[in-house]
């Protein structure tokens, strides 16, 4: 018997048949399919009890109430909080993606110190003592005014603590980023008096006249605005949108009135003149010498034909708008171009608000609410030593933040020895961002309190990483043009993911490490203790309900109307620069314009005619495109910068105007948002408004050429 090839064949076939007939084949196939579902990189959420915790979102000034769904202590979803007075269950795309910020690739995981061109990790103790030592050194030299501080906003307890630190230290140089709330306060203080602010009752108004305010593009409290806009049809309320571009708000409006960029102030003045001339205004609310001066000035300077020529809006349409507005039962004129942030003209804001005054809608349902700024926090009085008194008495380096950077960037000797930046990204968000970056580069010591790496953090010497809004307890006052004033309580929903601290705790630790006179003003064990004592008047309700409505409905305060500013300042800020086109920024709901930048989820929702690959788009009317086609590459050039972009032909933008979306072109290490498109703020130069001192640039002259 010889074992040959056929024997081996028989053996092989036998093995194959035996295995095939045995359960092994079926079982292994089944197991392998399950094995493929269990690869270690496949995320498997932990199972556990489902709970909900209420908190407040502070990603933008909207301050929406949120409900965070947790499974076994792990937050898994953010929803709008039902019954919250700002958003009543609604949430925007940034809010629902808020959990991504916990694990964002740009998060700063521990305190960092710049060493050469790189950052090295240091401990919190080292970081606090580095900051305190440097600040003490500057103070000892007798120049406390050489320390400056930039805040994202002026309200809330963390801003309160930083203001307390700067005041105790002795510097007059405290600046806030330009935001809608600061513009509302400025407009209110100009027309109505100090410490006032303005809200808009959009949800009840029957005629909203929006002067380029992006009602559904992130203006004010976005979700509140979406809801007000969504209910317009049921309420038979009209929205007329005055804009240089057929924005989403304009597309959703009953009327879109195209206007030349930067001429909104002239339009409002012209409408005021027409209303006064026709005696259509509510005389009972305005009766003063200043008003008479204003009335005669606008009637002389803003005749309708002239306004029509300036704005590009036909005279008949201007008159129709003025009549429709003034005759509506509950009209409201909304101001603040785009999101109402960035550069704005006080003349424009005040002139538009004067329309509200003329309509007599102040503190009326569906109109505007003019009230005192809410002040629910009471910190103990500070003790101020002689060094601080001397320092604080020095002149600040400008009235607004752009003045500050102008002085810092152009001065010879360092005007500022140290800068503290809290939750702000001026190197990205301010006009002529490259200049701002260069100015910050000249400051010897920059300390940044931030949760994320960004353009300003990159320029800092010490980064103190702070908890995100999901990881921290904090009072979150609403602002942003709401008709009511609400303060919500953001809670620590999850333990800090990285080695971060509460910004309030970091400030307290720095304060305690400074001179005894300053340390004495920071004698709290923790931020939590500080907040509880500062907000003691409302703490029980705030901690129990998660929010307190400070004022709601029409204010009963007596409101003065002072037209002196408008009577004295008739000049409208012109668009500067060279070129046959006017470049304007476009605010887009899906792209935050400031800090933090878009979440990975949000950036993915931006359409490919705004960002495609690494390229931004320039919107241009086919009439101005001179044969350029969709997708063509061009170089956009202005007096301060240039950027490569692609063409998007759009008949919905006025001829002669080109628009670029804000919120792109980040340059720090976050693969989701960095290196994508161009930052329009690097192309626009500030234009200072006479009379207010604000950067009021609404755009810049530009030219495009093929590349």
């Amino acid at each position, binding site marked *: 018997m010889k074992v040959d090839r056929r024997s081996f064949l028989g053996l092989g076939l*036998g093995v194959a048949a035996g295995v095939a007939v045995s359960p092994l084949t079926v079982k292994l196939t*089944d197991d*392998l399919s399950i094995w493929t579902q269990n690869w270690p990189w496949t995320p498997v959420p932990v199972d556990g009890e489902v709970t909900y915790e209420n908190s407040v979102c502070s990603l933008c000034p909207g301050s929406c109430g949120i409900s965070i769904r947790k499974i076994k202590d792990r937050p898994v979803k953010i929803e709008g909080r039902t019954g919250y007075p700002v958003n009543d269950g609604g949430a925007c795309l940034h809010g629902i993606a808020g959990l991504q910020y916990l694990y964002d690739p740009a998060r700063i995981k521990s305190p960092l110190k710049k060493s050469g061109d790189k950052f090295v990790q240091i401990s919190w103790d080292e970081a606090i003592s580095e900051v305190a030592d440097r600040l003490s050194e500057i103070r000892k030299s007798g120049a406390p005014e050489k320390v400056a501080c930039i805040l994202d906003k002026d309200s809330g307890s963390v801003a309160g603590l930083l203001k307390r630190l700067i005041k105790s230290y002795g510097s007059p140089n405290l600046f806030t980023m330009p935001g809608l709330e600061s513009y509302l306060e400025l407009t209110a203080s100009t027309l109505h008096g100090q410490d006032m602010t303005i809200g808009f009752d959009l949800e009840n108004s029957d005629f909203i006249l929006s002067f380029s305010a992006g009602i559904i593009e992130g203006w004010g409290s976005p979700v509140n605005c979406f809801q007000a806009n969504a209910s317009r049809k049921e309420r038979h309320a009209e929205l007329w949108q005055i804009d240089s571009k057929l924005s989403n708000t304009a597309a959703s409006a009953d009327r879109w009135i195209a206007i030349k960029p930067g001429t909104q102030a002239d339009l409002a003045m012209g409408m005021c003149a027409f209303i006064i001339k026709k005696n259509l205004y509510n005389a009972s609310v305005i009766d003063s010498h200043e008003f008479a001066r204003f009335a005669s000035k606008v009637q002389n300077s803003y005749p309708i034909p002239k306004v029509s020529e300036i704005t590009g809006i036909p005279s008949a349409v201007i008159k129709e708008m003025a009549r429709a507005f003034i005759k509506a039962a509950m009209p409201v004129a909304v101001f603040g171009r785009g999101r109402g942030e960035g550069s704005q003209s006080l003349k424009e804001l005040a002139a538009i608000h004067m329309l509200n005054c003329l309509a007599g809608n102040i503190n009326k349902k569906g109109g505007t609410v003019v009230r005192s700024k809410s002040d629910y926090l009471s910190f103990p009085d500070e003790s101020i030593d002689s060094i601080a008194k001397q320092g604080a008495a020095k002149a600040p380096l400008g009235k607004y933040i752009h003045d500050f950077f102008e002085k810092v960037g152009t001065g010879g000797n360092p005007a500022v020895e140290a800068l503290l930046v809290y939750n702000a990204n001026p190197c990205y968000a301010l006009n002529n961002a490259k200049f701002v970056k260069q100015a910050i580069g000249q400051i010897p010591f920059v300390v940044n309190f931030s949760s994320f790496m960004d353009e300003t953090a990159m320029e800092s010497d010490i980064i103190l990483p702070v908890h995100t809004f999901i990881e921290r307890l904090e009072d979150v006052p609403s602002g942003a043009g709401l008709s009511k004033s609400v303060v919500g309580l953001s809670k620590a929903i999850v333990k800090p993911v990285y080695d971060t601290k509460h910004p309030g705790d970091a400030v307290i630790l720095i304060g305690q490490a400074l001179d005894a006179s300053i340390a004495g003003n920071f004698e709290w064990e923790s931020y939590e203790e500080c907040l509880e004592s500062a907000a003691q008047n409302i703490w029980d309700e705030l901690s129990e309900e998660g929010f307190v409505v400070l004022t709601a409905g029409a204010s009963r305060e007596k409101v003065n109307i002072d037209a002196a500013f408008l009577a004295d300042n008739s000049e409208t800020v012109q668009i500067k620069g060279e070129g046959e086109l006017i470049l304007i920024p476009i605010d887009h709901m899906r792209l935050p314009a400031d800090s933090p930048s878009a979440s990975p989820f949000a950036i993915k929702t931006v359409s490919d005619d705004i960002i495609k690959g690494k390229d931004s788009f320039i919107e241009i009317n086919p009439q101005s495109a001179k044969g350029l086609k969709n997708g063509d590459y061009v170089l956009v050039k202005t007096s301060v910068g240039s950027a490569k972009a692609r063409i998007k032909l759009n008949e919905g933008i006025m001829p002669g105007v080109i628009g670029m979306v804000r919120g792109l072109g980040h340059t720090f290490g976050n693969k989701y948002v960095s290196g994508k498109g161009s930052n329009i703020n690097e192309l626009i130069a500030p234009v200072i408004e006479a009379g207010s001192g604000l950067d009021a640039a609404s755009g810049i002259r530009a030219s495009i050429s093929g590349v």
Partner: protein
Amino acid sequence: MSNKENINEHDSAENSGEGIADEAKNDKGLGLGVIFFIVAFAVSFVAGTFVFPELLYSTKEQPFSFDHVLHVDEAGSCDTCHFVREDGSFSGIPKLENCMECHEEEPMGDTEDEAKFAELYVAQEKEIPWHVYSKQPDCVFFSHVAHIQSKNEGGAGMDCIECHGHIGESTASRPYEENWLTGYSRDIWGKNIFGFKTHSWDRMKMDDCAECHQKETGHKGYCFQCHK
């Protein structure tokens, strides 16, 4: 060797009459091949049926033995510890804090297992790493409440035993047989490697769900009902 030479060799073999003897030799080879086939088939079949399951599963002991009978006697019924939460989700295996509702710092009995429980888990505030016999892949959505709620309340009115068997009558934890490939318990496929079952709780595969759904509702159910 060239083709020409091959042809020549073949020709010469035929001419000499040696071809018949070669065929007989080949037949012998076939007979041996059949024997090899039968033996290999038998060995493979036996290995695939009896040896393979033994190799596929490893045996693991639970952290300590758990006496269900004792606990059911003391606590009442299954749902005292394995309860449905207010929102309808199922609590599953009790967490340490659930155990601590009855067990406090000191052991309640004097068994070695309870001492282990107190020392290793209660004292160190560590969750007990139970091996769960009925754990299913995460891609499967299963609502306990829909199955155990009475028919009047819209549920299937099933008893725990129908899927989990008589585990509530066990006085000690049996070893956990873990599938090397999937990590899941042998209980899911069932003890019988062919997939045959005697009782409804012998297997917990998708086909078993479908079989019951077919019987009770007239339809096996759609993919997305469980795979969400």
